């Protein structure tokens, strides 16, 4: 057993690695999450159902052959680094929120719980939106569906989320991920020494909470947007018109 409170020296890059953990959570991963959820939420925009979403996805795919390298270097590598190191950090803590029920202590425990959920959810999500995700209720997300209708991205996204049990998984995943980012911004402001006084930390807390609420609404809104998109299979197969996708109001 290690002696309590004795710094294990020799870990030369400990500080750098922990600061990179904080930075990767914010800059590539956090910003990506915002862009991702906002892009998804364009499915809610008025007009032809799925049309705005299609345009948003096309803008992303305009990167062409650069898209995959950008995804790997800009998203997957920082995300994996943040997640795996995060699991290691979780293991260094011993939560005591049952004993000391302070708001900040509950947030500390939630940050670790949601980090874990977010990691599991993202692994599932990435698996689920590819052709090899069919066994887990998913399928291939694509810019164009097989019928070649003009809002193919929206129909494939809707099809992937069609099973009833996907909705709660996605809702929990989105809420956990957004909480982890919003609370992570709050703690990173302390980590980097930007908010020092309790007063500035409190103000930052309100701002982060507001950010979290808005991003949660955007994320959940996008999910409901895809769920209310009905894919008229007959139309898809018979005539390639703009009316193959419609919105049904539950």
């Amino acid at each position, binding site marked *: 057993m*290690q002696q309590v*409170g004795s710094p294990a020296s020799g870990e030369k890059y*400990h500080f750098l690695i*922990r600061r990179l953990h904080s930075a990767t959570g914010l800059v590539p991963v956090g910003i990506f999450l915002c862009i991702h959820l906002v892009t998804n939420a364009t499915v809610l925009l008025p007009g032809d159902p799925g049309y705005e979403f299609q345009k948003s996805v096309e803008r992303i795919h305009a990167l062409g052959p650069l898209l995959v390298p950008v995804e790997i270097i800009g998203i997957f590598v920082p995300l994996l680094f943040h997640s795996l190191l995060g699991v290691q950090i979780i293991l*260094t803590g011993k939560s005591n929120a049952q004993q*000391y029920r*302070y708001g900040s202590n509950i947030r500390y425990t939630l940050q670790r719980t949601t980090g874990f959920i977010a990691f599991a959810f993202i692994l599932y999500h990435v698996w689920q939106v590819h052709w090899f995700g069919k066994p887990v209720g998913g399928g291939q997300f694509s810019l164009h569906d097989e019928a070649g209708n003009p809002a193919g991205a929206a129909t494939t996204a809707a099809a992937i989320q069609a099973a009833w049990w996907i909705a709660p998984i996605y809702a929990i995943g989105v809420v956990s991920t957004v909480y982890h980012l919003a609370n992570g911004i709050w703690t990173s402001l302390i*980590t980097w*020494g930007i908010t020092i006084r*309790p007063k500035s930390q409190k103000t930052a807390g309100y701002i982060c909470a507001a950010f979290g609420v808005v991003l949660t609404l955007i994320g959940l809104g996008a999910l409901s947007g895809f769920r209310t998109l009905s894919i008229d299979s007959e139309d898809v197969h018979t005539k390639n018109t703009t009316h193959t996708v419609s919105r049904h109001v539950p």
Partner: protein
Amino acid sequence: MAKTIPVKIKRQDTPHDGSRWETFDVPYESGMNVTTVLQRIAANPMTAEQQSSTPVAYDACCLEEICGACTMVINGRVRQACSALVDDLLQEQADSIELQPMTKFPVVRDLVVNRQPMFNSLSKVKAWVRVDGYHDMGSGPRVSEATQEEAYPLSRCMTCGCCVEACPQFNDHSPFIGPAAISQAILFNSHPTGAVDREDRLAVLSDAGGIADCGNSQNCVKVCPKEIPLTDSIAKAGRDTTLYKIRQWFGR
């Protein structure tokens, strides 16, 4: 018949023995604190089951929340036995009082723990002002009133262990040195003479077990009996180590 309070105590005979719980019925006296309770048990070490037992070992020294020696976990919350008044405890939890030693330190006996890890951390961060000798060096450097006002609250730390006891990041599988040592490093860095060792302190704070291992649960500041702004010190340590590392990596 006078009112008695059941006092449940976690006991351990030696550092190597297992622990057990014993309950003592202590006659209530108005205004008594937990130290008084332990004195009454020592005077008559008879358990609630009328079994003869031994006096419960405990530390106590100043009896006015200045030394930190009597720190223990009382009704699930870490605090000093001397300033824990029985009347208040019965308000929190009406039926009984539960005492156990701090969980983050090795138990010596019963409620006595060895707080040496706290002191080791203090020496690691050089929590002192270095003097070259005992000869007269004249008056010290002027300290502005603003700096004094920042420093005074930090100087109240009595190394009692409350902050590390409540800290989820301070445990046997984490190298974290804890809030008290970080705050003392910030205190002595703010002192004009103490600042001679500033870089050494920042080197320790930016090493493994330093500031990067804080998880921002902020329990430390809430349980601190001296109301030390520990989270201010932690955030300052975050800022100072960031700038220190930038200076290190890019040359000063």
